[in-house]
C-alpha cells in the first residue's frame, strides 16, 4: 500500500513516485544544490527535469 504522496522539508519538495519508483525532487530549497540535498538525504532520489526553487507565499 502506498502511504506518503509528498515530502516537504526545508531543503526541498519530493514526490513519492508510484510503483516503488522512489523519490523525485521537484522543488529545491534556498541555498541548496542537488548535490547538497543528496549529501543530506539517506534515500536515493531522481530529479525532475524542470527543477524550480521552493515557492514561497
Amino acid at each position: 500500500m502506498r502511504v506518503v504522496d509528498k515530502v516537504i522539508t526545508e531543503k526541498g519538495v519530493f514526490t513519492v513516485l508510484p510503483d516503488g519508483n522512489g523519490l523525485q525532487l521537484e522543488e529545491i530549497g534556498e541555498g541548496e544544490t542537488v548535490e547538497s540535498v543528496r549529501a543530506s538525504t539517506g534515500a536515493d532520489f531522481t530529479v525532475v527535469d524542470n527543477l524550480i526553487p521552493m515557492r514561497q507565499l
Partner: protein
Amino acid sequence: MPTLVSNYVPPGVNITLQAENGMLGVGPFPKSGQVPARAPAPASVLPASVASRGCLARRRPSQEDCDLINAGKQTVTEMDGSSFFSADQSFAMIRGAHCQVTILGTMEVAANGDMANYLIPGKLVKGMGGAMDLVASGSRVIVTTEHTDKKGQRRP
C-alpha cells in the same frame, strides 16, 4: 511543523482545516497577548471555576484562548463557520474518508513512501496520535519534516 499550515493559507483560498482533537475551521495562531476579556458572569450564576476559565468569554478572531488548541496543543483561532466536536466524530470523519488531504510530521520516510512514526527503540515517543488513522484513510498524504536529524545528520 504540520500545524504551521493554518498560518499560511493565503487570502482567497477557502479550505476547511480539521484538527483531529475536534475542530473544523482551524484558523492561524493568535497574535500573542491578545487574550479575550473574561466573561462578566456573576458568581451567583456560574461557579467561579467555570467563569474564570475564559471559555465563556466572547472571542474575536485572532484572540488567544488557551482552551482553543490544535492537535499539537498550540493555541489557534476560529474561522467563520468553525465547529467543535468529540473525538469519536473527529475520527469518524477521518476513518470515513471525508478528509481529502492529510498533512503530518514524521520521523522518517522511506524511498517507497513508507513512513516511520511509531517508536524509537528504548525511547518514549508521545503523541503519535491519529497518524495511523490518517494514513489509512485513503487521503492524499503530505509529510512535512526537518530534512536532517537534530545533529544535522541525514536520516538513515
